[in-house]
């Protein structure tokens, strides 16, 4: 008898799975989301998005040209970070800045060389468009670099030994070339998986309610658990498939090193995928309408994963209250795990503590889903 019961349950589950599979296959949009989206997004982030500035357009306003201003201009010309253009007055340069043709101005007044040779103060004035403050900071850093090396060159030519009191030596671990692609690509994988998990599943149960087929499912002997499992398993497979594509692209196409273990990555991804799927399921159970489910899923998945996960913006720098909110965003834990696994290796304290947090979320979500999903009509 007991054997019969299990086999009947298995049959029901298989039937449900088959129905879901057909729905996925017949509507190409969910396959597109799972397999086209990761490729598009990874290419976009891998090639399109970069925080590494090159060829920054700067204006060099030289009021009176001579050997000294020429040597400074040459230093900017030779730097790979700048694409200088030249102006004879500050007014012309300022107009170009207002019209967004250049991002910054290096202004050498007419008495610059004279004062410099007389040993008087000869300041170089810098004006930077501060609208994009991050870019402005980076630009300023590069200008300082050019200025320092010019200063050393200039002093040495005059036989002055210029020694800086404190010299900074920079050592960047895990990403010594400061290549932003190396941290953006693992972050994007987390964003992709969040979206596939939450958005796809959010739509599926809401669709059954809206079309009235939920009532048809309710009169079958199918239990709620079997129905949920039937909904989750196909999307779990879809999500993991897109995870493998993303990791393969990251490693073989974009050259992101995978310093940690591949299997640890598969495990933490599976855990994260489950959390995402349950969030999607919860959204769809609560909203019961595809418009609400779609809006909620985007509001609860894409933008938080993009902005609150620490993928772009440093969590430690957020106000304490907002930091508290980030603990509720599963992508936060996954981003930390992925960036560590890709760039640093199997750092167990980071991986385990974040995995534990995801596990707690999984249990809470499973409880919420099962308590919200009753076979009841409104």
């Amino acid at each position: 008898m007991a054997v019969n019961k299990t086999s009947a349950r298995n049959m029901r589950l298989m039937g449900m799975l088959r129905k879901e599979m057909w729905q996925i296959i017949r509507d190409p949009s969910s396959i597109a989301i799972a397999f086209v989206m990761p490729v598009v997004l990874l290419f976009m982030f891998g090639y399109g998005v970069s925080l590494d500035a090159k060829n920054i357009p700067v204006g060099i306003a030289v009021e009176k040209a001579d050997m000294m201003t020429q040597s400074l201009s040459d230093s900017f010309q030779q730097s790979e970070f700048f694409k200088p253009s030249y102006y004879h007055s500050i007014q012309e340069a300022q107009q170009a800045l207002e019209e967004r043709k250049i991002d910054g101005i290096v202004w050498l007044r007419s008495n610059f060389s004279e004062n410099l040779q007389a040993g008087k103060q000869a300041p170089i004035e810098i004006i930077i468009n501060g609208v994009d403050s991050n870019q402005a900071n980076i630009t300023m850093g590069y200008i300082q670099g050019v200025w320092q090396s010019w200063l050393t060159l200039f002093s040495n030519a005059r036989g002055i030994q210029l020694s800086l009191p404190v010299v900074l030596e920079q050592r960047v671990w895990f990403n010594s070339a400061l290549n932003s692609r190396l941290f953006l690509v693992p972050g994007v994988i987390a964003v992709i998986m969040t979206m596939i998990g939450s958005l796809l599943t959010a739509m599926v149960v809401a669709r059954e309610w809206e079309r009235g087929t939920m009532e048809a499912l309710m009169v079958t002997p199918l239990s709620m658990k079997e129905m949920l499992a039937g909904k989750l398993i196909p999307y779990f497979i879809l999500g993991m498939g897109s995870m493998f594509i993303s990791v393969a692209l990251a490693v073989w196409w974009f050259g992101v090193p995978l310093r940690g273990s591949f299997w640890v990555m598969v495990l933490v991804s599976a855990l994260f995928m489950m959390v995402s799927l349950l969030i999607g399921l919860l959204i769809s159970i609560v909203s019961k309408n595809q418009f609400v489910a779609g809006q909620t899923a985007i509001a609860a998945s894409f933008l938080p994963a993009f902005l609150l996960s620490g993928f772009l913006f440093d969590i430690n720098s957020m106000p304490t209250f907002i930091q508290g909110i980030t603990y509720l965003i599963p992508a936060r834990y996954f981003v930390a795990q992925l960036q560590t696994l890709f760039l640093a290796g199997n750092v167990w304290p980071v991986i385990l503590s974040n995995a534990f947090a995801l596990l707690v979320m999984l249990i809470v979500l499973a409880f919420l889903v099962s308590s919200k999903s009753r076979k009841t009509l409104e």
Partner: protein
Amino acid sequence: MKTQYFSQVFALALKEFLALFRDKRSRLILVFPPLLQILIFGFAATYDLDNVPIAIYNQDQGLVSREFVSQFEGSETFEIIEHIKKDSDIAPLIDNKDVLLVLNIEPQFSDKLQQGKSAKVQVILDGRNSNTAMTAMNYIASMNLDFNQKWSAQHGATGPKVALEVRNWYNENLQSRWFILPGILGSLILVVILLVTALSVAREREAGTFDQLLVTPMNPTQILIGKAIPGIVIGLLESTLILIIIVKLFQIPIQGNIAALYLGLFLFLIAATGIGLVISAISLTQQQAVLGAFLFIVPAVVLSGFTTPIANMPDSVQLLTYLNPLRYFLIILRGVFLEGNGFTLLFSQFWPMAIIGVVCLAFAGWLFKHRMY
């Protein structure tokens, strides 16, 4: 004839509003998430560093190194959470993400400086987020510059007296929030409008009522206008609400012409509505419409210059961004908010959005008639 034309359009628009607002959950979802998001993201999204945990490894016993370290104690950017004593302590702190960076001050740091030699400080950074690492490095470099200038002045250094005097226009204190908040406004509105419009036709297709709509005396242009109105009205109202929050709560002043901002907003809404209706007209089910909207929203947000500069993208991708209405709208928002722009400087941003809007609306209208199943 004319009045009948508009009363039909009006009736359809009214029906669309009712379809959206009839359900309590739909009403809530249109208003609350965007407001909640602008509040949370507004505070969260900043590239500025604040209270970043760091560790100090001071191998020197002298006074000067303590003076050097004291700069970091007084800084709001950094928070020293640990003073370490040996080399082997560095790796675990950084590996486990306990600190972003370790400052390693060499032995004899103070002696070397007092003898007029150069002394070395090694900065070891966690490069897992290289942008954060670089920002932190820039902060330290400018703190070091101050320290060096003070030291040289006190100890009578020689050499050319060339200092950099820096001014930042439009955003003097370089607050990244000023840059990012207008971007959040644009992205949130894009999400809301695209979903509202993308689902409007798809919902009727799925329910089978769109065919009925097509056999009414209304022509496709009327249906198009009727379907476009709710998105534009909701967008205008919600943007106004968010603008008030940005100005009042986040205290970002509007320096430029508000009328120019609203013209930009209106054109942006028309373009977004057009794109949403095209997606809607292509989709057969609501799921397809939502996923289609999503396939547009994500690249549009990423390639708009919202979080990362367009200038850093490769040329081919930069060309692609010209098709993105959000790109133009963000320039208008930042131009009016921060740079004090008016109509003339922003003219080149207005017309591309108008073209995108008209082309998409026309295409959607054509699809209404020609995509039947």
